[in-house]
């Protein structure tokens, strides 16, 4: 190890810092996002296409799912083209923060922590989280998870919840739903914490290892996420969600992909009328 090599490493570090840091500083003064979307004629929507049935790819490798249809409807109503920016659970919010997407429609639950860094629209669907397991697994409450391996997707509300409430459980964190589903199907784990909506797809991967809901942890509400301080965009999206909840279009999309109804009245009352 010579001094020159060390110098090179230091120079490399400085370069890395600069190339990361500069773009961040240069995006300060920016125009209104709604105006920009309309001017560009397209809206960039971040969607995770690996969470069936919200976002997935069909047999022609085209994105489909309830979040995708929602985004299509929104773009149509806004009169702009839809550009889907594929994302993953942990990168949904960074996509907004780094201006890679205009809005996020990606099973994004409203949480107080997230509300600190982004703005949420009024909820468009409910989203119960459950702890599920194989038929042979005996669990009734969170304390039964002590010492057991429980699969979660890193950074999801289930991860945060169980980290706080089931301290005895051994959380096994995967990067996305597909990897977690594979872990269950291949026998790496017998218990998982996820959205109820995901269970049929996971069981389908390996019918011999069908999972069933055991504990309902909490019901979250899904909303459209956008950057803070965008009052025009927020007002437009809120208005759009309310209209389409009332006319049943959102319920129809949900029913088509999930086979269950969304509690429209409940959602509208949460939205304040």
């Amino acid at each position: 190890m010579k001094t020159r090599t060390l110098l090179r490493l230091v120079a490399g570090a400085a370069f890395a810092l600069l190339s990361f840091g500069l773009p961040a500083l240069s995006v300060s003064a920016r125009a209104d996002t709604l105006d920009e979307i309309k001017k560009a004629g397209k809206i960039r929507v971040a969607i995770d296409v690996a969470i069936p049935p919200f976002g997935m790819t069909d047999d022609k490798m085209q994105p489909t799912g309830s979040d995708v249809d929602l985004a299509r409807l929104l773009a149509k109503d806004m009169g702009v083209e839809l550009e889907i920016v594929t994302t993953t659970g942990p990168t949904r919010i960074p996509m907004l923060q780094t201006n890679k997407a205009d809005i996020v429609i990606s099973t994004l639950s409203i949480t107080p922590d997230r509300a600190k860094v982004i703005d949420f629209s009024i909820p468009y669907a409910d989203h119960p989280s459950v702890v599920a397991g194989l038929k042979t697994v005996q669990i009734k409450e969170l304390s039964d998870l002590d010492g057991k391996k429980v699969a979660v997707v890193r950074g999801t509300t289930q991860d945060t919840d169980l980290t706080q409430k089931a301290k005895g459980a051994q959380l096994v964190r995967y990067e996305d739903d597909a990897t977690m589903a594979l872990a269950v199907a291949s026998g790496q784990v017998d218990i998982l914490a996820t959205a109820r909506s995901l269970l049929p797809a996971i069981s389908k991967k390996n019918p011999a290892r069908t999972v069933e809901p055991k504990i309902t942890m909490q019901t979250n509400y899904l909303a459209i996420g956008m950057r803070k301080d965008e009052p025009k965009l927020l007002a437009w999206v809120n208005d759009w969600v309310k209209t389409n909840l009332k006319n049943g279009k959102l319920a129809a999309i949900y029913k088509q992909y999930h086979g269950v109804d969304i509690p429209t009245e409940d959602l509208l009352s949460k939205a304040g009328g």
Partner: protein
Amino acid sequence: MSYKFDFAFLADKWPDFVAGAWLTIQLTILSIAFGFLLGTVCAVARVYGGPLLRRLVGAYVETIRNTPLLIQIFIVYFGFSSLGLKLSAEVSAVIALTVNMGAYTTEIMRAGIQSILRTQLEAADCLGLTRFQAILHVVLLPAMERVYPSLASQGVLLMLASSITSQISTEELTATANLVQSDTYRSFEVYMIVAVVYLVLSALYRLGFWAIGLVLFERRRRLGTPL
């Protein structure tokens, strides 16, 4: 959007980063060590072995070098457990990384071994060394010294590549970064910190390889010149 850098979360989260970096170190040092042994044995087999053994090793090397590491990791972690052999994420990671490191080491060491002149072996024969002694003392050490920079680079590359084992739930440095990022939403800051930690780790690994080289290669230690 004006972005303000905020590193305040470090006050709470630095032990997580340390734990993540520590696991990265443990995983990769084990993999590098096992991978080196595996690769050296395979390289000897590939150069001095019979036709069947040579072909077997060749198939192993080409398969591993021409498939993505992520797929190899998934096969060990998900594939084996589908067959009923449940390995933990960490064990799977070490196995996959070892096998990967072994394949690259085989090629690197083979180049080293083939650079040793035949006459050296003949000289060893004349001195009455057995084939095994000759390979061990006359061939392997100088061969390794010749390709040592490549070996060290491969070790560092493996350390960096170990970041993708976060996919199978090992809580190493990159997994820690993803977790902290999803907790605090300070993605810029988190990934910058982790980039710097990887840079420091790379420097430490290079320093380590250099020190091991000094211990191993007496000729180099005394003369200070490359072979």
